C-alpha cells in the first residue's frame, strides 16, 4: 500500500447505534427503571424504603451489552499500537484455564486443602524469577502501579532495617506517571532526573541527583523511547555506591525476553506487568497484575504471605521482615492463572521469539513512516514526531482507518510525540496497513485532522467541556 491510499476503500466504520438526535444507545436506566419497595426480614429502621434501578429482561440486556461491545475497539478489532501498554494478542484458551472450577476457592482455605493453587503460585513465582533474573517474586500486587508501591515499600523497609532512613526516590522525567505517584505514596520526596540529549540517562545529572538520601532510582529499560540504557551497569554501580537500590519498571520487558534480564543488569527490585508482557487481557482498563521480584538480599521484606515448597508440600509463610500486605488477599488470581498458562505455552523459545518479533515489528513499521523518528536504535517501541501536526489530532484521524492510535504527546522530549508499540502480534500485512494509516494522516490537512474522526461510534468528543461541569451518573443527568 502507498501514501495515496484510497481513503474510501481503506477505511473503517465502527458500529454506531443512534437512538435519536440527542443520544446513541440509551442508558440501561432509560430503557426501563423500576422502584421497588424494600421488604426484608430486617426491622424497617435498618433498611431503605425503596430501591430504584434498571429492570430489564435477559434478552434486552444481551442486546444492550452486545451493542455496547460493538461500539468498543479492542485488540481483536485491529492494530492497537498504544506505546508502553503492550497491547498484544490475548490467547483465548487462557480464559478457560483461568476459570477452572478447581481453582476457584476461598482465599481463607487452609494450605493443606489448596495445594493446587499454592503449587501454581509457586511455579509462577519461579517462572517470573527466571525470566527477570530475580531470586524471589511475590504475586500479590494487583497491577503495575501496585507493584511499584510494593517495591518502594520493600526498599523503604530495607533501608529502615539498616537504620538508614532515606528521603528521596529518583525518577527520570520521561518515566511513567505511576513511578512518581508510587514513590510519593510511600512518603518519599521525588527527585526528577532530566534526560540526556541522546534520550538516555545523563550520567552527570544522575551523579548530581544521587546522595545519601537516595532510597532508590526507578528506571525502565529499554526506556520510554525504546532505547536501551547502555550505561546500565555503571548506573547500577553509581546507585549502589551511595547505598541506594535500583528499581526496574517492567512496562517495557516485552523488548528483552531471553536477551537481557533486569537482575543481571544490577536491578534489585522489579515489577512485571503481566497484562503487557504476558498477554493477559487489559479488560478495558484492568484487572492486571504486577508481581514484584527482588534479589535474595531483599526477599525477607516481601509481602505476607509468600509461597514456598517444604518437604514436597506447598505452604504460605510470612517473610521475616515482611512489609505486610498490599492486597486484601492473594492478588488478582484469574489474571495470574492466565499468566502462568501463557508462559507455560510459550516456553523459552516462544518468549524469546515474542521479543524478537516485537522488535522486528517496531523497526519494520518505523521504517515505512513519513513521520520522523528522532531517537534510536529503539526496540519494541519507538516515538515518532507528528512535527507540525497536533499529535492528538493525528491520533483522532487514525481512528478512521481502523487503527487504534499510538500514545500521544508523551514522552515530552519528542515534539508532538506518537509513541508506538505494534507488538509481535501484527503480521506484515497489518503493519503495512498501519503504516499506510500513519502516512495518510501525515498528508491530511489540518481541517481534516481537527474534525476527525468521522467513522467511529461517536464523533469528536469535547473532553474539556466535560471536565468543566462533570456529570458522573444518570442521577446527575436527571437533575438537569
Amino acid at each position, binding site marked *: 500500500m502507498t501514501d495515496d491510499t484510497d481513503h474510501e476503500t481503506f477505511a473503517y466504520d465502527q458500529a454506531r447505534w443512534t437512538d435519536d438526535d440527542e443520544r446513541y444507545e440509551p442508558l440501561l436506566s432509560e430503557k426501563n427503571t423500576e422502584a421497588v419497595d424494600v421488604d426484608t426480614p430486617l426491622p424497617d429502621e435498618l433498611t431503605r424504603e425503596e430501591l430504584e434501578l434498571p429492570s430489564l429482561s435477559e434478552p434486552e440486556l444481551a442486546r444492550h451489552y452486545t451493542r455496547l*461491545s460493538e461500539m468498543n475497539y479492542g485488540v481483536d478489532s485491529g492494530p492497537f499500537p498504544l506505546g508502553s501498554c503492550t497491547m498484544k494478542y490475548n490467547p483465548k484458551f487462557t480464559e478457560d484455564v483461568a476459570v477452572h472450577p478447581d481453582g476457584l476457592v*476461598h482465599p481463607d482455605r487452609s494450605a493443606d486443602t489448596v495445594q493446587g493453587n499454592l503449587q501454581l503460585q509457586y511455579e509462577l513465582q519461579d517462572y517470573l524469577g527466571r525470566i527477570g533474573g530475580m531470586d524471589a517474586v511475590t504475586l500479590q500486587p494487583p*497491577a503495575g502501579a501496585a507493584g511499584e508501591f510494593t517495591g518502594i515499600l520493600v526498599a523503604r523497609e530495607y533501608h529502615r532495617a539498616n537504620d538508614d532512613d532515606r528521603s528521596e526516590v529518583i525518577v527520570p522525567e520521561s518515566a511513567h506517571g505511576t513511578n512518581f505517584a508510587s514513590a510519593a505514596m510511600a512518603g518519599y520526596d521525588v527527585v526528577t532526573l532530566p534526560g540526556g540529549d541522546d534520550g538516555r540517562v545523563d550520567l552527570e545529572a544522575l551523579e548530581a541527583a544521587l546522595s545519601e538520601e537516595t532510597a532508590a532510582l526507578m528506571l525502565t529499560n529499554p526506556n520510554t523511547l525504546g532505547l536501551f540504557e547502555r550505561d546500565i551497569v555503571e548506573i547500577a554501580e553509581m546507585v549502589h555506591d551511595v547505598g541506594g537500590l535500583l528499581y526496574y519498571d517492567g512496562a517495557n520487558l516485552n523488548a528483552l525476553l531471553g536477551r*537481557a534480564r533486569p537482575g543481571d543488569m544490577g536491578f534489585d527490585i522489579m515489577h512485571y506487568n503481566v497484562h503487557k508482557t504476558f498477554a493477559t487481557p487489559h479488560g478495558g*482498563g484492568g484487572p492486571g497484575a504486577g508481581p514484584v521480584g527482588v534479589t535474595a538480599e531483599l526477599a525477607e521484606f516481601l509481602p505476607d504471605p509468600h509461597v514456598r515448597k517444604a518437604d514436597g508440600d506447598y505452604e504460605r509463610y510470612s517473610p521475616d521482615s515482611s512489609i505486610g500486605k498490599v492486597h486484601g488477599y492473594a492478588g488478582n488470581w484469574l489474571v495470574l492463572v492466565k499468566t502462568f498458562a501463557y508462559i507455560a505455552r510459550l516456553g523459552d523459545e516462544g518468549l524469546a521469539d515474542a521479543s524478537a518479533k516485537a522488535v522486528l515489528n517496531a523497526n519494520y513499521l518505523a521504517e515505512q513512516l513519513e513521520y520522523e523518528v528522532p531517537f534510536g536504535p529503539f526496540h519494541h517501541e519507538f516515538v515518532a514526531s507528528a512535527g507540525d501536526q497536533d499529535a492528538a489530532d493525528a491520533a483522532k484521524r487514525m481512528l478512521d482507518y481502523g487503527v487504534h492510535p499510538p500514545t500521544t504527546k508523551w514522552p515530552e522530549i519528542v515534539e508532538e510525540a506518537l509513541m508506538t508499540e505494534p507488538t509481535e502480534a501484527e503480521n506484515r500485512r497489518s503493519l503495512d496497513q498501519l503504516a499506510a494509516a500513519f502516512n495518510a494522516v501525515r498528508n491530511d490537512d489540518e481541517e481534516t485532522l481537527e474534525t476527525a474522526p468521522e467513522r467511529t461510534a461517536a464523533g469528536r468528543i469535547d473532553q474539556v467541556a466535560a471536565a468543566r461541569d462533570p456529570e*458522573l451518573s444518570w442521577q446527575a443527568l436527571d437533575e438537569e
Partner: protein
Amino acid sequence: MTANGSPYAPHTDADREAMLSAVGADDEEALFDIPDDVRFDGEFGIEARGERAVRSLVDRTLSANDDLVELLGRGHYDHYVPSMVDHLSDRSEFLTSYTQYQPEVAQGFLQALFEYQSMLVELTGLGVANCSMYDAATALGEAATLATRVRSTSGTRVLVPERLQAGRRRVLDNYVSGHDLAVETYPMDDGTADVDALASLADEETVLVYAETPTVRGAVEERADEIGTLADDHDAMFVLGSDPVALSVLEEPASLGADVVVGDAATLGVPTAYGMGIGLFACREDYLRQVPGRLVGVAEDETGRRTYTLTLQTREQHIRRERATSNICTNQAWVALRTAMHAAWLGPDGLVELAGDCVERARELAARVDDVDGVRAPVHDRHHFREFVARTDRPAPAVADDLEAAGYAVHVVGDHEIQLCTTETNEEALDGFVAALREVAR
C-alpha cells in the same frame, strides 16, 4: 509462524525475510542494542507446550485442591453469577480493550462504566462513584489518604474496628505509612461497633472513622447513624464498608452520614476467586477533585449527542505525577463491567430478594446449628447477613479440623468460635454440613 516461535506472532518465513531485508538486518538479534556485558546467554528452562498440554498441566496442578464445601466469607463471598455475565463480558471488544484514552472508539465500555458508577450512586446515596479500585482493602487505604487531602477534615488519627478482615487492616497500614496518619482501633460490642467506647476515643485529632455493615462477624451495624454523627462532631470523615448486595436493602449510607463508602463490589459479578474482587469507592460530591481513580462523565460529541469520556484526569498520575490523588492506573474495569451486568440481570426485585435471602439463610442456619449439641449460635444477638459466629464447646480449631476432614471448610475466629457463611451456592450442602457438625461438635 516461525518454527518453535510464539504461536501468537503470525509471521511467515517469507514475511520475516522481507521485513528483515526492509530494515537492513540479517536477523532479529541485530536489532537489539544490548551491551555484551548484560546480554543473557542462559535459558529460563521453561518448556514450551501445546495448548492442550497446558490445559492438562493446569488440570493436574489444580486437582491437588481438596473438594470442600465452603462456608467461608469474611470479606470474600460466593454468589451465583448468571451465564449471561460470562458470555457478554467475554466479548473481545470489551475484554481486549484498554483504558479509554480514545473515547470515540470506546463508547461501549465507557457507557458500561458510567452505568456501574450510577448504580453505586443509587446504592450509596452518594454523589460520586469511581470506576474501581483494586479491592476492598485498597479502597479503604485510598479513603484514608483522601482524608488527608480534603479541607473539611483534619487530624492524624484513623479509627477502625478492632475486628477487621486482616488484609484490610494490613493494607490500610501500608497506605497510611507514607502519610502523617496513625491507625488505632476501637472496641466492638457483641459483633458491632461499641459506639460508646468509640465516642470516648474520638477527638479533634480524629480524621477518619471506619465502620462496616455487615461487620466482619456478619452482623448488621445498627448504630451506623450514631457513628456518622459522632464523626461529624469531630470533623472526621465517616467511611462505611459494605457491598452492593447488602446495600440493596440496608439504609442508604448517605442518610447515615457516610462521607465515603468502600467495599468489595465483586459480590456481584465474580464468584469465589481466591480473593480477587473489585474495590467499590463512592464519596460525597464535595470531594470530587480529590477522588482517587478513574471517573467517567458525560460529554457531547460534534453531532451534539450525549457521549461518555474519562474526565477530571488532572487528578491522575499520568498528568499530576507525584501530586496525583493516587498512583492507580490499571484498575478492575472489566470486573466493574461484570458487576454492572450482574446487577442489571437481577434488577431491583432480584437484588432485594437476594439480600433478603442473605438475612433469612443466615438466620435459618444459625437456628439449625444452635440445635446441635455442643454448639450455640449465633453468638451475637444481632441481625446477620450471610454469616454469623457460633460458639463451640470443643476448641474451635479441633472442630474446624474435623469438619475439614468431613468435607467442610469453616473459619476459626476464636478459641471456641467458628464463623459460618451461607448463600445460594452452598445451601444444598447444608443438611450434610449440619449432620457433620453434629458428629464433631461434642
